[in-house]
């Protein structure tokens, strides 16, 4: 027995680590099948009811819609701007480059609660009322840094000889970018976009300051936790998790197929 334990210690440890990581997710998923009453805190029996009607609880789907809209717009803008900044920082030497490199990290290091509060103060000073667009602007702001860092890492790993080879093979600057540079940096941009979306979708603190009466999904869950979170929130949470898992698995599958024939 003692021998068996020492032999399998790493496996046991790994198993426990995964249990620790996945219990909250399993709990969320399990309770999406709960035949909940007013609150979804105690197990009252198995049902598909919540999955058949995920928009059943009041406001849950409009909140989700707002989150998705903000997430998509913020991701799009942050990815485009961040990618351009990443190319500028990764490919060109200019005065103040190292300063910019440092400044890019600042939004990541600043506490969200401070960012959120100051953004609200700024919007109010400018006479802009909190709501949808101020939230989008705030999200773009904190997503950009993550996009820049992710894409820049990808650009740095790109062999500049490849671009020289393309130019040598009759591709103009524009074509070199289109045919070689961009396709090779694409996985990095895609990863950055996913990261930006999940950051935006998930954000509560900054959103809470700047969205006014607009309800996003995290805000909805937070507010309803006072009076009981509906099981539909668990359904949507589980769906988002499965979606993210699906994207990751698909990405793995595509890249492993690319490396095989």
């Amino acid at each position, binding site marked *: 027995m003692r021998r068996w334990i020492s032999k399998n210690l790493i496996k046991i440890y790994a198993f426990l680590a995964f249990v620790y990581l996945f219990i909250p997710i399993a709990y969320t998923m399990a309770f999406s099948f709960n035949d909940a009453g007013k609150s979804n805190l105690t197990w009252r029996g198995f049902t598909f009811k919540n999955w058949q009607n995920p928009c059943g609880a009041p406001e849950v789907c409009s909140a989700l819609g707002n989150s998705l809209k903000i997430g998509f717009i913020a991701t799009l803008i942050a990815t485009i701007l961040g990618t351009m900044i990443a190319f500028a920082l990764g490919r060109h030497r200019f005065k103040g480059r190292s300063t910019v490199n440092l400044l890019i990290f600042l939004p990541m290091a600043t506490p969200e609660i401070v960012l959120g509060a100051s953004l609200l103060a700024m919007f109010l000073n400018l006479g802009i009322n909190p709501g949808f667009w101020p939230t989008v602007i705030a999200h773009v702001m904190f997503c950009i840094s993550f996009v820049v860092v992710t894409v820049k890492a990808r650009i740095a790993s790109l*062999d500049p*000889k*490849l671009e*020289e*080879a*393309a*130019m*040598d*093979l*009759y*591709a*103009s600057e524009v*074509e070199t970018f289109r*045919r*070689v540079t961009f*396709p*090779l940096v694409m996985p990095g941009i895609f990863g950055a976009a996913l990261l930006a979306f999940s950051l935006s979708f998930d954000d509560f603190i900054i959103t809470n300051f700047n969205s006014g009466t607009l309800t996003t999904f995290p805000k909805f869950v937070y507010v309803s936790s006072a009076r009981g979170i509906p099981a539909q929130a668990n359904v949507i949470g589980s769906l988002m998790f499965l979606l993210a898992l699906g994207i990751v698995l698909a990405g793995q599958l595509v890249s492993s197929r*690319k*490396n*095989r*024939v």
Partner: protein
Amino acid sequence: MVDKAASVKGDLRLSNLVKAFGDFHAVDDLSLVIPEGSFFALLGPSGCGKTTTLRMIAGLEEPTSGSIAIGNTDITYEKPYARPVNTVFQNYALFPHLTIFENVAFGLRRRGIKDVKDAVTKVLELVELGHLAQRKPGQLSGGQQQRIAVARAIVNRPALLLLDEPLGALDLKLRRQMQIELKWIQTEVGITFVHVTHDQEEAMTMADTIAVMNEGRIEQMGSPVELYESPRTVFVANFLGQSNLVKGKIEGSSGNDLQVSVHGNRITVPSGRNFAKENSDKSVLIGIRPEKISIEHSAGNTLGGGVITDISFVGVSTQFQIQMPWGQELSVFEQNDGGASHLQTGDTVQLSWKPEFTFALDGTADVDAGTSVNPDEE
């Protein structure tokens, strides 16, 4: 992309080419003509400016001054994609996201050629890798990637193919095989090849003409035989193979020969093989290749009183280190035909060689030029 590049043909002409990085002149007033259709090698230690020269020809680097022309067309400031020049990069630089077929078709497609299938298939057959057309570069071995890099360049039928240390990443056996293969491909397609390398053996095996570069300048240019048998500078004498260089003083001349006194011995050098500049004290360096010296036979020029300090057997020959009475160590390679097999360390011997193998170099030059560079570092 307008296909004006395809019509440019002729000799490659570099005139007074200079590339300066700040105060450092990587290429220093370089002029040379590379005849159309030849296999030309730029040989030199790392940092001698050969790769910079190549990059200027490719258009990847802009010269500080001077000009580059193919035939009568000046291409000095043309963009890389506007010149009829293709490059085989050191680590091949195959596009990892494209199949082998698309890698090879890349240049043709950029020039607006619609039907690429025939040309690509043909060139893949030439390098014997037609069956790998649908693979990605990452799935190929180093040797295969190397051949694809060559195919991707020559499919465009450029006026000039540049090879930047193309075999550097391959192991020795594969390198030998690729040397023969590249030489064969060059004869097959008839394109001018300009090959940059630090490996003197590689340059000698493949090139018709070699230019030996050192510190941004050309030391000497010629056929492999010319460079080896008649090196004109100490650098060339030491960088290409090995040389014994001994200080001497010109005493006079008789007929077509110079008489040189070398540590009390009288050595004959044909006047035509004296490459030393005139100087007031008439000092020269007498040069002789190790395999030209015989320990056993007397053959004109002799240096006596040497003591064997080391013998190493290397198969086809035996290499002797011999300490001369004036302290200098000389190398002698004897063929293993039985003649020198009785010799032992400590024996006193006489070195002798035919006068026509002797050459004379500038007596003021540094005897070690070209020896301290390790040809394998890069």
